[in-house]
């Protein structure tokens, strides 16, 4: 146990370096996944079509072992950042996509009808009504994908990267159980910290009306507007 705690001090430089690499890789992977999945999910949800195909395809993606993807991608993109990035995006993409289209599709039909009755166009409905109402569920997808990605990015060592927590996690022979536990702890902390930060972002981008509804649902009286 003492070696577990002393590992942090004795390997502070290495831990810092690979933690930063781990964060960079994870952030880029989640960003790419969001950029790809959000428009597609919103569009499908808005159309109320193709959801069966999407569910099927994303479930297939989700079941692909990340390590197998890394090995396969070596033949196409070689070793390096792109290789592990592709594997992590494939992991994160279905989570964001499914949550986005489920959220947009599930927006109260009465609300959408009312917007249409007011003369709003399709894109206006999507951007002003459906997407704002979908923020909490979409952000849940993003937060889940972050946790998955951070917990899986250690596989970067199999794609030829020496700058993630995987350097230690995959080398029990070299760093001992104390080292593996220490690196795994950092990974867990990263997952929680990122989840917390994304929670703050979620709060910031959630429309006031929804936030009030959520507060009321918890039994707290809504603040009276001044």
């Amino acid at each position: 146990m003492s070696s577990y705690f002393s590992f942090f001090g004795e390997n502070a430089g290495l831990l810092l370096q690979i933690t930063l690499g781990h964060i960079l890789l994870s952030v880029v992977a989640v960003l790419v996944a969001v950029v790809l999945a959000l428009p597609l999910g919103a569009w499908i949800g808005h159309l109320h079509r193709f959801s069966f195909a999407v569910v099927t395809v994303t479930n297939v993606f989700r079941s692909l072992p990340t390590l197998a993807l890394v090995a396969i991608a070596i033949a196409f993109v070689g070793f390096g950042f792109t290789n592990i990035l592709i594997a992590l995006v494939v992991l994160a993409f279905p989570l964001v996509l499914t949550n986005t289209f489920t959220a947009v599709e599930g927006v109260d039909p009465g609300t959408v009808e009312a917007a249409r009755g007011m003369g709003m166009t399709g894109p206006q409905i999507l951007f002003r009504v459906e997407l704002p109402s979908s923020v909490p569920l979409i952000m849940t997808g993003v937060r889940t994908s972050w946790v998955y990605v951070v917990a899986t990015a250690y596989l970067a060592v199999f794609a030829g990267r020496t700058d993630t927590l995987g350097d230690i996690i995959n080398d029990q022979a070299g760093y001992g159980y104390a080292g593996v536990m220490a690196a795994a702890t950092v990974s867990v902390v990263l997952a929680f910290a990122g989840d917390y930060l994304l929670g703050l972002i979620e709060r910031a981008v959630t429309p006031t009306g929804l936030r009030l509804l959520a507060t009321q649902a918890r039994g707290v009286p809504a603040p009276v507007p001044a």
Partner: protein
Amino acid sequence: MSTTTGGRLGRLSLVGVAAAGALLLAACGGGGSSSSAAPSTAPSSANSSVPADAVSVTAMPGSIQLPAGTPGAGKPAIVIGDKNFPEEFVLGELYRQALAAKGYAVSIKSNIGGSELIDTALSSNQIQMYPEYLGEIVTSVAKQTNPPTSASGTYQAAKQFEESQRQSTVLLQTPFQDTDTVIVPNAYAQQHGLAAVGDLNKVGPGGAGATIAGPVEFKTRQTGFLGMQQQYGLTGMGYLPVQAGSQYTAIDQGTAQAADAFSTDYQLLSNKYTALADPKGIFGFQYVAPIVKQSVVQSEGPEFTQTLNWVSSLLSTQAIQALNSAVQGHGAQPADVAGQFLAANGLK
């Protein structure tokens, strides 16, 4: 793994070619390669893979005759074990089939486990013999922290441990060993004049400009990249962690210039790569020998030992690579491959 332009058909047709290749190698493994190099001098100079200090404990190619007849008839039955990977399956089958052909009542328990586990199986007398890598006995079973720095020292340390702690002994070791070895593409070796690991310093200061691909744990091992840095001064080299097997892809693609391989990998048969010598012995010594209960050696008689030593003497590096190629590269059964190999070398 490799670039597969031929596709499935191409690979299937290779099976026949490889089996024939293994037989060919087997046929000339009895002495063809060594006799052409140095006809009448000591075997050590003829077979460069066996260090001079270890010749006396090695079953040198061509030096051991197969006993005639079936001396094993009526001797007590024994059980052979082997460890949990393909090369061991082949070794176990080779020893078993040779003994069976000589009339010994022998059965095999294959795929038992790692070094510690199979040592326990021997201690508890569930098996009476198994083929083992001698460096493994010293480090994994005897758990000596300062491994010997020579092939003969490793053999003696393993033998001493087995005799004093396990009531067992170590027969003659094979001419091949299965150890980590640094390989580079042939063209790269010629371009920079590389013959030994230390020559990588010629590429750049401390090996700067060259990257070595290997499993992630190789990076931090004394018997790995760490030892290369400390013993050969290769502090400028880069490291590319890969999954086992992918290191060949890495140097084929040019992402790495060197790779950590096993000296018995069948991929080395392709003659595309140059294995760099390790004069300081940092990767340890992993020659194979049968570990046998002393009581069994006594009760089975001298022809038993001679038969096993004869099998060991056939196993040059090229021979084991060809056997591995048939099993790992082309999916042949270890028992079939071992049987063909022994038959080609004169076992009836």
